[in-house]
């Protein structure tokens, strides 16, 4: 995604006019950089300069496109995307296991660069052998039993969840929605928002909403994100893991297990994600590979207690 470039005709002039423009533009530039500052802080430890620039361009463009799309609207999109995902997958009705992944996930989301979503982050295990995970906009995150079985310890579970939090942080799900629908929702149809729209408008807006949900679920379930988005989510995951002291090698370790278990041509991660090997290679350009992920007795015990039997 390219950032639109602003060209000022007066830039051709020299001398004083340039200085005046500089005085005018600098504060605006600084104000515009407030969001990018956060991105810099995420990325600086885990990405090379080229990657940082590329993600910054996308981030700026996304911020602009979705500027008027409020977290409240993102929340309603996410809820319905979640309900549609649950139409195809049965939830695992295991209160203790779901509580455990929520504790890990909510702690990780707290230290992400987007700890504040409208409705918060919530996690659910899907009762499926398929190796898969989904992040609905706004912070509803779903992981299958299959992907959790690729995790040998708590840090690996944290790595899976942190990757999905990365997708939420960068609004990757929302970006699957065609811009025309966003525009409809926030202007033409949104103008009659709140309690003032009539039946016709509501029906039209709901129809746009259905199309938007279809855009997101189509990407999440069938097509997958771009390799760039997956790389960005992996980079965010490494940063998040490091912030609370999980070994980021846990992400590599989990991908190595996944690589052995994924069936070529399968309908799960194999279809919607880049190969685990290519993700590992990319992650290892930014972290040092350890032979074994360190853990503690307490972490080992709680992982065994809540997830060993699933």
């Amino acid at each position, binding site marked *: 995604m390219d950032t639109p470039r602003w060209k000022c005709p007066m830039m051709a002039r020299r001398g004083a006019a340039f200085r005046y423009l500089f005085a005018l533009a600098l504060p605006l530039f600084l*104000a515009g950089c407030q969001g990018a500052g956060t991105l810099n802080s995420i990325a600086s430890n885990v990405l090379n300069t080229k990657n940082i620039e590329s993600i910054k361009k996308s981030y700026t463009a996304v911020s602009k496109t979705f500027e008027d799309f*409020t977290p409240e609207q993102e929340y309603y999109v996410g809820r319905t995307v979640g309900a549609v995902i649950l139409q195809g997958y049965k939830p695992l009705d295991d209160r203790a296991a779901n509580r455990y992944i929520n504790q890990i996930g909510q702690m990780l989301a707290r230290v992400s660069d987007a700890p504040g979503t409208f409705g918060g982050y919530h996690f659910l295990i899907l009762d499926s052998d398929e190796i898969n995970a989904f992040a609905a906009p706004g912070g509803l995150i779903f992981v299958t039993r299959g992907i959790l079985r690729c995790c040998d310890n708590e840090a690996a579970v944290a790595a899976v969840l942190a990757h999905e939090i990365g997708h939420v942080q960068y609004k990757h799900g929302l970006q699957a929605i065609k811009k025309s629908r966003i525009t409809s929702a926030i202007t033409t149809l949104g103008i009659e928002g709140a309690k003032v729209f009539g039946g016709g408008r509501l029906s039209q807006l*709901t129809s746009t909403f*259905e199309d938007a949900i279809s855009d997101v679920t189509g990407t999440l379930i069938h097509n997958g994100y771009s390799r760039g988005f997956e790389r960005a989510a992996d980079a965010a995951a490494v940063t998040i893991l490091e912030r609370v002291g999980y070994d980021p090698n846990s992400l590599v370790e989990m991908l190595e297990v996944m690589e052995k278990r994924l069936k070529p041509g399968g309908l799960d991660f194999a279809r919607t994600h880049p190969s685990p090997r290519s993700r590992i290679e990319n992650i290892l350009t930014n972290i040092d590979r350890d032979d074994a992920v360190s853990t503690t007795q307490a972490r080992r015990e709680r992982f065994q207690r809540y997830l060993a039997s699933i």
Partner: protein
Amino acid sequence: MKRAGIFILIGILCFFLPFPSDARGERFMSVQIRNGVVRSTPTFFGEVVATASYGDRVILRGERGAWKSVTLQSKWATGWMHESALTKKEIVLRAGASDVRVGASSDEIAIAGKGFNTEVEEEFKRKNRDIDFTWVDRMEQVTFSEEELLRFLREGELSVPGEGQ
């Protein structure tokens, strides 16, 4: 020299534009999430000074990294909020028709419930009765207190991130 002065003045004014300010020059932001938290330090697990609701106004005092130093107007509590919880726009919770019209195109006002909202979700449910929201509602009920999350971190011998992140 006069022209230079005018341009510099415009530049200074533009610096304050991104944050709406009142007659006293105070800059405001609004809480854009349902459950906002004001902390004593600019850290993810800093002590909670006050809780903030959707649409609450804060006065901006300063910033450090992704954290804004604010005073929450409704409780007159001062502390730090993460930038992801805040917007420069004023959020109008109970909008009249004129507010809605202005809010649709304004850079300064956001209308709560504009566009995709609870009514749209209800209409979607009516049209798609096979899609069940029960587990989505259940998911949202799983939350933890500050103490529970901190205990989980400490029991696992994990670290509590420091200042300025």
